[in-house]
């Protein structure tokens, strides 16, 4: 028995010996200080770079673009895609802990940024040529740290034909009373229009990215200036605007009541898209990323967006922002080539074509003239062209808060277990736990 104990003790000592030095041996002193080479982006690039992509859907397009870049500049670009059931954050963390330092990786918001910054991986991109060509770069403390991968947006998607037949003028749907009236009109004509429900919405367990993040963002930004952070700042301090939250809760309660219950509770994303795509609903609560799926399914009726206007006053705008940013890894070997690659993507005709035509994105750069093929993407482009946009603040909430804490509250209201007043109470209590 003694020997076993001895052996165990030995293992513990070995373990501690290794962990005792887990500190930061080689964190770059200050990433801002590394930033002197933005001027000469086209000279002296060689070797290879690795780019980590979190959208498996654009894997093929990105690989083609990488090949084109390699042929042109002789720098090999390895594309590393995660997707589907692969959780992105742990996959990336696993890569880093395994000693891989890709030159470019994706961050999805403040939490990612903080963890990348704390481990010395964010390279200061302030002053890069493309920064003046966009308004969607990731900025922290006045410095630029992220290259916007694309623009995405959502509102209340609608089927043009169905709304025409119901005699509804979509340009009037900019406040909650108008939307309620439209819902009621359509609901009364359901059989005539061949609908199973008015709205296609899914709020079940797998859908908290829609409810806890996208839906909740309406509370955070609707009707506010693009840079107005009042509501999100209050939230981060543990406070809510009760009146506003009540309007919000009532609006979503209405959406839920006009949805198909089975799709709403257990249907999931496919069912939600399927209902709208086969003309069984007049509206859908989704963003422009559903375009490729509809294209694959051969859905070709006309569609567009109206605002998620939950307030009594007019709020003519949809939510548009960058869902993710490319970060140049300050701990990687080939930073120069990485900067050049991003610059080439943002400024060359080939890069523009890749972003819009091949990967189907709404471009985040002013100079891009291509128009995305998908109808919802075009709608996002138009709203954003008119400047009628509200911000994305949902990714500035603490990690997990939207999907895992708020999501279940939405689900309870969708299932009819709680009313809007109870919703407000539970959200208020949950927000209170955020206070530092």
């Amino acid at each position, binding site marked *: 028995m003694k020997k076993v104990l001895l052996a165990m003790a030995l293992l513990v000592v070995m373990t501690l010996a290794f962990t005792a030095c887990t500190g930061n041996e080689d964190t770059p002193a200050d990433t801002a200080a590394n930033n002197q080479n933005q001027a000469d982006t086209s000279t002296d690039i060689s070797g290879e770079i690795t780019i980590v992509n979190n959208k498996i859907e654009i894997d093929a397009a990105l690989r083609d673009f990488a090949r084109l870049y390699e042929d042109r500049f002789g720098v090999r670009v390895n594309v*590393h*895609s995660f997707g589907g059931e692969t959780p992105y954050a742990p*996959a990336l963390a696993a890569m880093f802990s*395994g000693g891989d330092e890709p030159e470019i990786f994706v961050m999805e918001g403040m939490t990612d940024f903080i963890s990348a910054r704390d481990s010395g991986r964010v390279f200061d991109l302030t002053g890069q040529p493309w920064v003046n060509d966009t308004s969607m770069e990731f900025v922290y403390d006045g410095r630029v740290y992220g290259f916007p991968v694309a623009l995405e947006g959502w509102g209340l998607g609608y089927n043009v034909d169905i709304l025409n037949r119901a005699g509804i003028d979509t340009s009037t749907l900019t406040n909650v009373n108008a939307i309620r009236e439209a819902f009621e009109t359509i609901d009364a004509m359901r059989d005539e229009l061949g609908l199973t429900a008015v709205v296609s919405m899914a709020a079940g367990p797998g859908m908290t990215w829609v409810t806890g993040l996208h839906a909740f963002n309406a509370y955070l930004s609707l009707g506010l200036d693009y840079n107005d952070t009042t509501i999100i700042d209050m939230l981060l301090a543990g406070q809510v605007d009760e009146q506003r939250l009540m309007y919000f809760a009532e609006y979503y309660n209405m959406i839920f009541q006009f949805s198909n219950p089975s799709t709403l509770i257990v249907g999931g994303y496919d069912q939600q898209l399927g209902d709208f795509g086969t003309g069984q609903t007049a509206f859908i609560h989704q963003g422009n990323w559903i375009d490729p799926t509809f294209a694959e399914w051969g859905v070709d009726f006309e569609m567009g967006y109206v605002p998620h206007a939950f307030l009594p006053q007019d709020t003519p705008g949809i939510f548009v922002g960058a869902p993710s940013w490319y970060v140049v890894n300050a701990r990687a070997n080939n930073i120069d080539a990485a900067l050049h690659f991003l610059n080439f993507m943002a400024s060359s005709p080939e890069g523009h074509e890749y972003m819009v035509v091949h990967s189907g994105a709404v471009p985040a750069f002013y100079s891009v003239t291509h128009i995305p093929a998908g109808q919802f993407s075009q709608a996002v482009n138009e709203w954003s062209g008119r400047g009628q946009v509200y911000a994305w603040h949902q990714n500035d909430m603490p990690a997990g808060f939207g999907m895992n804490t708020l999501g279940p509250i939405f689900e309870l209201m969708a299932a009819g277990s709680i009313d809007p007043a109870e919703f407000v109470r539970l959200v208020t209590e949950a927000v209170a736990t955020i206070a530092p």
Partner: protein
Amino acid sequence: MKNFFKRNNIIAELFAIGLFLLYMLPFLMVIINASKPVLDIIMDPLSLPESPTQFITNVQAVMDSPVVRYASSFLSSTIITVISVTLLVIISSMAAWVLVRTKSGLSTAIFMLFVAAMVIPFQVVMFPLISWFHRIESVTGLLNTPFRLLQNYPGIIFAYMGFGSSLSIFLYHGFIKSVPLELEEAANIDGCTKAGTFFRIVFPILKPITVTVIILNGIWIWNDYLLPFIVLGAGNDVQTLPLAVANFVGSFVRRWDLILTSTLMAMLPIVIVFLFLQKHIIKGMVEGSVKG
């Protein structure tokens, strides 16, 4: 025992057939829906396939996917499963044999350690495991060699040797206890070395339990997702079939046509192996678990 159901033979047989069909129903659902286009699946999962060629179209789509790389993933899965299981059989039977045949406090304690480890939740060791592997790589200089641990065969096979040893030793230990000592003593007298005794006399006797160990570990390793995800990482050169399947589904869209087809293609090899070797496998499983 033998007379149960005698009187009610027909009822029992019908009951059993009903149970059998119910048990096979999920497989049937997969096969039917893997032969349909995606919108048909979502809109009516119970409908029968309309076009006989849709299945081939779906298989083609999975085969063509640069993310799935079916052939190479299949090969990687096979390499990892075969080598890991082979090594597990060798090291566990050796260890179990000396643990049974040596009666001492140390031997009992080591055995208990292996058994106790079965209750360690994988989550406890998941992330520490990679930082630890990476540390070994860097310290030993394996990092830039073909023998590096992470994202590569050696690491994952090594990991399976560790994670699989508990149950395997437990099974061998139970079985060896029932093997009479006389054979080994006779071999000793005949001048066999101890190692020779083990490999020539004992190991062949262990065949039934070896079959069990191979089956259980084989099934587990072939299907495992979390450990390859951690050690190999997603989207690298070496990827197993479950990793490939999980990584190619669109971020949020469940492409049921492709999911079900790739699922079918991932489980087909192991089902075929099972159906071919069914008799041996079941016999081995039963004989092997007598004392397990």
